Each structure stands twice: as structure tokens, then as C-alpha cells.
């Protein structure tokens, strides 16, 4: 196996006000692998993934305990800038959310806010990101058009390209295909399989077959706890925990 640990989650608890949403989470996320997070609604999987890029602290009145290490550095350390973490750990959301700007500007935005001014460099990066997201051929003649004119599947790939442009190390996908048709979903799943060669990927999905198709590791969450995590082929043929089995065979949830 020999994949190194990219993110280590150690004894993490998370509270919304007084309500505990995550209990004692311990898991490793490996480099250049796709880790899927599955579980029924309300199990904490979205809460968990948003913790990894510190998006959750934008919600008032939330508390985190425990440590999350990215390449050995604690992302909650006071010397670390959360804004920088969010560049290194990118996120693609459930509903495509392109900016109401042109296609080109959507992608150059990330570069601009991170201080890159060189126009040629920006252009080159926009093109390469669109190519990596397998969107280039569909939009190369209309980069100046509004991004909102694209179809749902194209918009989501644009959001992926936008994320790739700032060269993250880890990409988090929060139910990325939930609002897409099956063909767009298939395209994005293929894209994820390609992307894992260069990036570490974590994907939250409520679709178990998707987790089975796309991931190398699967983690099952239930009521804020991590019940089981392991290699995907083991989880889906012979899970160790009865609750995991009950969930993936559809006997509950």
C-alpha cells in the first residue's frame, strides 16, 4: 500500500452551541487516494468535511476540540491562517455555485485573491485548469460569456476547475453530484478518478454505489460517530461492524 498520511484527525469533537455534532473522530486520510464519507442524513458527514478546511468556524457559536494535522501541521494552531488552509484544502459544493462573472473570471478569481497578477500566467492557469476539469473543449470559444449560462454539469466542472486553479493539495467534495443528472454524474466521477493521481480527495456522498465506484477508502458515520473506516472493497463485501452492514445493505436509513 504505502500511501502516506495526508491528513490525520485526532480525537475531534465538534459542537454547535451545546449540541455535540461530532464525537471523538479519529481517522487518517491518505495521499492520492479517494476517501468517501457515507452515512444517513444528520450523521455529521458534512459537518466533518467542513472542519477539514475550517469552513465550519464561519458559523457562529461553534466549538472544536481535538487536532487535525495537514502534513503534520495542526491546522487549528494559532499561527496558522485559516485563509491559507482554505487555499491548500479546496472545496466543491453540493449545488454548483459559480460566481456571476464570466467563465474566465471565475477561474482567474482564485489566482487574483492570492496575489497573482501576471496576466500570461493567469491565462495559462485558466486554460490548464479547464483542461484538467475536462471542460476546455466545451467552453474554449466562450470564455468571456457568463458562467451562469452553462448547464448544471458544466457549472460543476467549472467549480472544480476554479478550485484546481489555486493548486490545492487536498480537494473536498461535498455531495458534488447531488443535483446533477446521471451522465454529468458519471463525467464527474471519471474526473475524480483522474484527479486522484495529483490530489488527495475526500468525498461526502449519500449514494453508496457512488462511494463504491469512486473511492479507495470508505468511512461510515452515524449520529456524529465514526463507526468504521477501511478499504472500500472490504467495507462493501465484508464490513466489520453490524451497523455498517445494516446501513450498506439498506436495512436501515
Amino acid at each position, binding site marked *: 500500500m504505502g500511501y502516506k498520511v495526508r491528513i490525520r484527525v485526532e480525537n475531534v469533537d465538534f459542537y454547535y452551541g451545546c449540541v455535540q455534532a461530532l464525537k471523538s473522530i479519529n481517522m487518517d486520510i491518505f495521499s492520492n487516494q479517494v476517501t468517501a464519507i457515507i452515512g444517513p442524513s444528520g450523521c455529521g458527514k458534512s459537518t466533518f468535511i467542513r472542519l477539514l478546511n475550517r469552513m465550519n468556524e464561519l458559523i457562529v457559536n461553534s466549538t472544536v476540540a481535538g487536532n487535525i494535522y495537514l502534513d503534520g501541521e495542526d491546522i487549528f494552531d494559532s499561527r496558522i491562517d485559516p485563509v491559507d488552509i482554505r487555499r491548500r484544502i*479546496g*472545496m466543491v459544493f453540493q449545488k454548483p*455555485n*459559480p460566481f*456571476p*462573472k464570466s467563465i474566465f473570471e471565475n477561474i482567474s478569481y482564485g489566482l487574483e485573491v492570492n496575489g497573482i497578477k501576471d496576466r500570461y500566467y493567469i491565462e495559462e492557469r485558466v486554460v490548464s485548469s479547464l483542461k484538467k476539469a475536462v471542460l476546455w473543449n466545451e467552453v474554449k470559444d466562450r470564455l468571456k*460569456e457568463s*458562467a451562469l449560462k452553462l448547464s448544471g454539469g458544466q457549472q460543476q466542472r467549472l467549480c472544480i476547475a*476554479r478550485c484546481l486553479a489555486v493548486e490545492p493539495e487536498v480537494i473536498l467534495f461535498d455531495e458534488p453530484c447531488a443535483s446533477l443528472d446521471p451522465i454529468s454524474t458519471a463525467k464527474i466521477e471519471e474526473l475524480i478518478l483522474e484527479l486522484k493521481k495529483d490530489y488527495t480527495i475526500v468525498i461526502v456522498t449519500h449514494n453508496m454505489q457512488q462511494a463504491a465506484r469512486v473511492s479507495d477508502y470508505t468511512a461510515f458515520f452515524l449520529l456524529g460517530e465514526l463507526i468504521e473506516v477501511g478499504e472500500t472493497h472490504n467495507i462493501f463485501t465484508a464490513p466489520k461492524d453490524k451497523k455498517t452492514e445494516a446501513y450498506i445493505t439498506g436495512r436501515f436509513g
Partner: protein
Amino acid sequence: MRKDITQKIGFSFLFICMAITMLFLVGIILFVTSKGLKVISWEFLTQAPRNAMTAGGVAPAIVGTFYLTLIAILFALPLGLACAIYLCEYSPKGAIVNILRISINNLAGVPSVVFGLFGLAVFVKFFKFGVSMLSGGLSLGILVLPLIISATQEALQAVPYSIREASLALGATKWQTIKKVVLPSALPGIITGVILSIGRVAGETAPILFTAAAFYLKGYPKSIFSEVMALPYHIYALMTEGAHPDKQTAIAYGCSLILLLLVLSVSFIAIIIRQKQRSKCYGL
């Protein structure tokens, strides 16, 4: 069958109300136009008044209204924008924000003549700006500040949270997000607020009564500390203090017509700007 008839009655009633409203609107326009059109001429628009306001033009009043509006907007827009951004994006949610919001709404309810008195006390007397374009412009600015804040707030709140999230997830700071994503998206709404404000400012009489306006000035204002003529005040003065009502009434209508056209054309320009901004952002 009963439901169908009830619906028809309902719609007819609504239509009648709409028709009455349109009647008023069209009526005012026709009324002002018919009574004021005859005095409009090139001379009227470009010359200063002569002969104790019975001849000549109202150019200084037009110019005065323009300057007052400019000062008011220059004062209120940045201040209002900043307040709205603070309230929407930065202030901690809770009791404080609500108190601030209520206070601003209350400011909007203050009668305009009170702004005039306030301006007199503060700008004219305390700051010693005197009765001037500056005092008048600032008083009008305070009048229109709540309007701009409300319109901007609504425009900012209409920008979906998902867009802000997307920006933050790329490693942008909150301010970068506001400056580069939220404000451009909210621009159409903000421009609407500015349009409404311009219309309001151009037509207000009470705040400039004590702070800026003069009836008869020989020339154009020399500096921001000079007194100015203004269209709304001119109309008021002509109708109440004018010694030659036969000619001056017509001039008053002429001024009304100009004021109306001024406000309508500003609206029109702003609508065009808004449309262009919309198509750039949303591809509509």
C-alpha cells in the same frame, strides 16, 4: 362557477385600482407638461432670471439643484455603503444589529423639515459653513442616508451565501470576498437605491429652506460656500412670494416640468447601467 366569477371580480377590482393609479401618474405628467411647456425654451434653460423673476430663465436653479444633489450623493453614498456593509457582513448577529437597524429606519421617518433645522444648527451655525451649497447638500445627504443603507442592505442580502462560501473556500479573505464578489453582484440593487435617492434629493424643499437656498441670485455659485438657487425652492418661492403671479405661475410649472424630466432621465440612465451590469454578471 362561483369561484370563476369571484376571481374575475377580484381581477377587475385590481385592474381598476391600477387604472386609477395610472390616471394620477399620467394626469400629473400631462398637467405639468401642459402648463409648463409653453415657457420652456433654450433661453429658459440656459439664462439667469431677469426682471424680478418674470423673465429670463432658471439656469441657476437647475445648476443649483445639480450641485446639491451631487454633494448629497457624494456624502451619503460612501457612508451609506460602508454602514450597510458593516451591518450585513461584519457586525455580530444579535441584539446590537437589530437596534442599529431600527435606529436607521427611524432616521428615515424623521420629517424632512427637521433635517432642515438640524442642518441649520449644525452645518450653518456650528460648523460655520453658513447658508451654502455645502450645508444644503449635507443636510440632504443625511436625509437620504437611510434610504441608501436600506437599499444596499437588501441588495447585499440578496447575494446568495453560496457565492460567498465559494470565494472563502478558494482562500479569499472576507474583505476580498465583499469587494470582488458580493459588491459587484449587489450593484444592480445598489444602483436602484441611488436612483431613488437622486429623485428624492432633487425634489426636497424643506431641508434646503434654511440651509442653502436663495430666491434671487445674480450669478452662479462661486464655491461650495455660496448660496444656491434650487428648482424645488424656486417653485415654492414663485408660488408664495412672487409679486407677479401671472407670469410666475407659468415659470413655476416650467420648473416642475424640468424637475420631472431631470429625475426621469436620471432613472433612465441608471436603468441602462443596471441592465448592462446584469447582463455582464448573469448573461441575461
